[in-house]
């Protein structure tokens, strides 16, 4: 069994981890470890980061051969800083992630991904060679792309009809690739690509977006509350399984950089030629997925998302798409507290 490499951000290219002979292990903020992160950092910090750090402090982690951090936001930077303190013996790499998507940024990220891959090989005592690129990376990306295509197909089905349990099934597939392997996730996707149950009517199709919503049970709760998730945009949902176009450049790392930086971005990544483009993108995704309403779900203290919510609210209002904004703390408990608001919202959608 391959050794595991930990990571926390959707901009981590999983194919590189597997091509270097490791298994991916996304450290989800799910733990019964005591709250200690606030002592090392601050209590007013993203619960995702705090809970992941709590896991590190309480040693609530599998054995990891190394940890990848992405400089995606202040909270992630602080997590990387604190990890050095919490687990000083761990091998750690921090990858700089540009905010924009221009050619300079793509070139830079390509070099950062190359640095990441070389570091992973070093951690696994494998010498770097051109053959590794053509054989290992491309082969892994091909498998990854098959999975991404399956995920896309499941999403398309989700946007057309309501199949109970389908959304949580998709989340299980995505969690599998995040914590086990591409092969396991692909196998699971093949089994789940055709809905097991027949389509049902009478639910309100809603597009849900935000930073983190990784617990499959939450999607089942949504259904219990008369909601059909017709599409999602989270760093723990399909956005994480980014299709990689290997034909974009002769340099495979550049292809990865373009694919990761240009496809459905996190709120922290922006197209500077269209400031606030995230708002329009959410509107378009809601329409594409036939949603009658949109729910924004973000963790408390997440500046990249919370700062852009007013723009998103404005754009949805302009299109007369109802919007419900929720804040959470990475627990299903906090989601349970939102039940009344969600039920009232679905009633308002007049299905």
């Amino acid at each position: 069994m391959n050794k595991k490499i930990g990571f926390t951000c959707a901009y981590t290219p999983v194919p590189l981890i597997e091509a270097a002979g490791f298994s991916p292990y996304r450290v989800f903020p799910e733990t019964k470890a005591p709250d200690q992160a606030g002592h090392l950092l601050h209590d007013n910090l993203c619960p995702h980061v705090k809970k992941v750090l709590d896991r590190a402090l309480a040693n609530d982690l599998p054995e990891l051969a190394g940890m990848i951090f992405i400089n995606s936001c202040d909270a992630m930077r602080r997590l990387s800083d604190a990890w050095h303190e919490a687990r000083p013996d761990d091998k750690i790499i921090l990858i700089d992630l540009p905010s924009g998507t221009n050619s300079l940024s793509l070139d830079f990220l390509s070099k950062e991904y190359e640095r990441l891959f070389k570091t992973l090989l070093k951690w696994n005592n494998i010498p770097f060679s051109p053959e590794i690129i053509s054989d290992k990376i491309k082969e892994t990306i091909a498998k990854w792309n098959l999975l991404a295509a399956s995920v896309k197909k499941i999403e398309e089905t989700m946007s057309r009809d309501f199949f109970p349990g389908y959304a949580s099934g998709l989340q299980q597939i995505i969690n599998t690739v995040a914590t086990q392997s591409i092969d396991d996730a692909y196998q699971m996707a093949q089994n789940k690509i055709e809905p097991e149950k027949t389509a049902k009517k009478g639910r309100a199709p809603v597009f849900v977006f935000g930073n983190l919503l990784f617990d499959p049970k939450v999607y089942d709760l949504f259904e219990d509350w008369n909601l059909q998730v017709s599409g999602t945009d989270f760093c723990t949902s399909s956005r994480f399984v980014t299709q990689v176009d290997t034909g974009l450049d002769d340099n495979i790392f550049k292809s990865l950089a373009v694919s990761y930086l240009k496809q459905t971005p996190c709120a922290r990544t922006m197209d500077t030629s269209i400031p606030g483009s995230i708002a329009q993108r959410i509107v378009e995704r809601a329409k594409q997925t036939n949603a009658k309403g949109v729910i924004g779900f973000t963790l408390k203290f997440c500046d990249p998302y919370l700062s852009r919510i007013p723009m998103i609210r404005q754009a949805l209002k302009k299109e007369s798409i109802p919007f419900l904004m929720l804040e959470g703390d990475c627990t299903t408990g906090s989601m349970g507290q939102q039940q009344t608001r969600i039920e009232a919202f679905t009633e308002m959608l007049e299905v």
Partner: protein
Amino acid sequence: MMYEHFDNTVKGIQDKLNQDPEGINARKKYVLELSRLGRKLYSKNETIAWCGVTAPFDLLSSMGVTSCFVEFVGAMLASTQTAGFFFEGAEDEGFATDSCAYHRAVMGAVLKNAMPEPDFIIGTSSPCTAGLAIVENFAHQYKKDFFVLNVPQNYTKDAIKYLSNQVEELVGFVSGHTKKPLSKEKLNLALENFNLSSQLLKDIYELAKAKPSPVDSRLLRDFGVVMALLMGTKTGVDICQAFKDELNHRIKTGRHHASKEKKRLMWIQNRIQYPFPMDNMLDDLGAKIVVDELNNVTWEPMDTDNPYESIAKRMISIPFSMSTSERIKTMQNLALEYQIDGAINPCHWGCRQGTGARGLISKGMQDINVPVLNLEIDCVDSRNLAKGQIETRVEAFMEMLS
């Protein structure tokens, strides 16, 4: 309204300076120049750029652009006690109450049409994610062109080249808007002024290290970060010279004890921006802030033959751009050089960048036996201020140091 405010401030300070033509009055001259900058920003006759904190203001001034970081306005609104109206404006539009109040205040000012409309906007990924998000909101709101300088955290050859290339692209972006190419001579002059100012800053900080220190808790408050707005100009050089003269004068005339110095303190990050009697409280307790964390020169002199690379290195060298461990090393060095007894960290509510590292900073300072007082306070929004609680904690801290 804002133009009148700055105009009145300029006139008021000018009058006071005229009454004391022989005086050095460094702080008054500094505030005068910042007020002049504020007046220019609101004059409607300038090419204006709203920027992130680490933007290259020397380069922009050499290109005829009046530029300023947006947090400056947030701080100014707090200091004049007018921020409340703007917080409410931003919060009504959905900006989270637990976000950084520098940004909430200035965003409120945008929404209430109290900000001068910029010609373009330049964001910087350092020091914070929230700052970049807020200038994107500016660009969206004003429908103006937007340029982002991505400041990498790792100080590597590739990172410097990446940022240096971006600075070069920025020149093209600005020229495209001003319709004026960059004048190499003007840039050289700006960089020379920057270097002169940097050397003077080093001299100032060296003088401040003396024991007893010639500074009082007020003289150099929020100096380093705001001085960056003036650094590429002759005015900037004059201001730095005035501060150096002031400190030399204090030493010469034996005014070391401008405030008591039983305990020497470091102030971490920015000061409290609204009227708050912290300096008086410290005076009464016999303590003095001898160094602010951001009053520091972390960069090499600008190389006029490689201007973009020099600027890039400077931007990455700022401790806020780097990892917290690098920032702590810088603070530890300052602590030792200034021989401080303790540090105060105002954990600005809503700041994930600086405050987010609260525990790591405390531990880093404890490693060199410097106790840290973490004050849970919003440095810009005074609406939830628990003044008595802050006072009690400061008093207890000073007792502990004694």
